[in-house]
């Protein structure tokens, strides 16, 4: 368990009665969430429960049918929110641009928006890559040459370049072997400690959730079933959560 960062520069995220359907399929049916500035908040839930859909709402890739999302009491759909808050997302498949090198991918946000001169971008890219334990030589590789774990780390570096106040991770350890999953989990904790960004991790990896979370929420049936510390979640009596958290090959 990592201690909750004290002086937080992250923002508070509040989700109120968020609803979303695709056609006749109700995916989110009134989700309420309160995420504190700077904490690592893990959202768990079975596959298909709408975790990714919820994340995509937070970063503005989906618009809700009803309900709202507040960042420090500013509505997400308000004008100019992108200037006030920077949100970054690490996608499940990494979302790295295959036509660009690792270095270009990591620096893309800065270079496309002309935020820094090229030498400065170069320096920042190296710095962020070092933060996720990638060397200067890796910057010249293409995403296709990377292993799954490296892709995830590059994606994390690319997110950090934005100096985000919020970082969202979608299934950061899926498709990774347990050893690599542990290192990626550590990168997430470290990035959180360094940037103080509010960190929301979506996963169904129990080890990751209990290893890094300050608080855990459980999504089921389109709603938040429970929110609590890892200890509270571990011993929660809800049957769906019990089944989910205790499933293994020997029982059942």
């Amino acid at each position, binding site marked *: 368990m990592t201690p909750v960062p004290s002086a937080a520069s992250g923002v508070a995220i509040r989700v109120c009665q968020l609803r979303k359907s695709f056609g006749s399929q109700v995916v989110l049916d009134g989700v309420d969430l309160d995420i504190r500035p700077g904490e690592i908040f893990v959202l768990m839930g079975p596959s298909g429960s709408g975790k990714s859909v919820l994340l995509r709402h937070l*970063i*503005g*890739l989906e618009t809700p049918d009803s309900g709202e999302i507040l960042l420090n009491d500013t509505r997400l759909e308000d004008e100019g929110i*992108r200037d006030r808050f920077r949100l970054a997302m690490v996608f*499940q498949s990494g979302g*790295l*641009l295959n036509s660009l090198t690792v270095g270009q991918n990591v620096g893309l946000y800065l270079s496309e928006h002309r935020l820094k001169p090229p030498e400065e971008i170069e320096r920042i890219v190296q710095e962020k890559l070092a933060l996720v334990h990638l060397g200067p030589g890796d910057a010249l590789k293409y995403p296709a040459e990377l292993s799954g774990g490296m892709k995830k780390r590059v994606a994390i570096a690319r997110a950090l370049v934005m100096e985000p106040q919020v970082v969202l991770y979608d299934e950061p350890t899926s498709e990774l072997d347990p050893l690599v999953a542990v290192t990626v989990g550590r990168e997430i904790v470290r990035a959180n400690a360094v940037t103080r960004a509010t960190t929301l991790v979506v996963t169904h990896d129990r080890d990751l959730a209990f290893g890094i979370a300050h608080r855990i929420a459980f999504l089921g049936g389109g709603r938040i079933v429970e929110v609590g510390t890892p200890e509270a979640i571990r011993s929660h009596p809800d049957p769906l959560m019990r089944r989910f958290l205790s499933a293994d090959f020997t029982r059942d």
Partner: protein
Amino acid sequence: MFRELGKMVVLFGATFRALPRVLRYRRNLFEQLFEIGNSSLLMACVLSLFIGGVLSLQAGPLLAQRGLGSMLGGLVGASLAKELGPVMMSILIAGRIGSAMAAELGSMRVYQEIDALRTMNINPIEYLVLPRVVAISVALPCLLVFSLLVGCAGGAFVAAFNPEVAVSSAAFFNNLRSTLELRDILHGLIKTFLFAVTVGVVCCNQGLDTLGGPRGIGRSVTKAVVNSIVFILVLDYVITRMLLPLTKASMAGGF
């Protein structure tokens, strides 16, 4: 069908509005231009050579029998410039470049690269679609000129060496020069440009619209190419009908 058409119009509008910012994306633009030239010049060359040749082969004997062999050059040139060049080059580019665009954008969509761009506040239309549509619109008319030159060479070659035609190269090109006017070529260039924009928009739209994982990419590519060809052929009639009065004032009226 109409929803798709609507989406294409919207995409075209967005691309058109982004046009003033095209120089910001010149790196992507040059990459695309290079890609188009690199992958289609040889094919265009072979294709044009044989189209020119087959035109001579078909029309040559018919004209020669009637003692009109000397008119072959103009006929081949005009056919290539106004009709076959634009249509064949556009179809070639749809198959070669349009399909690649749909596949690339489709896989970017499926593998969340486009979502990632949007989370970085980078407009995928400006970053991805604009350079592609501009590149194809610049490259295709150039390809037409190239195709016209090669196609006429092919036509002249067959005209000279096929015993049933036996029109000398000098006679072929003399007739070509005196018959083919600049506005015929302009007619072809306008057509080609419009086809190019259409292919670019159709294929990019199809790519961005890819759904359903990796299998969706294949579906998108097929649809992009087929739709492009349908659009080219339908537009060809419409544009020709509209341009005809300008080219040959005496032929106005009727269908």
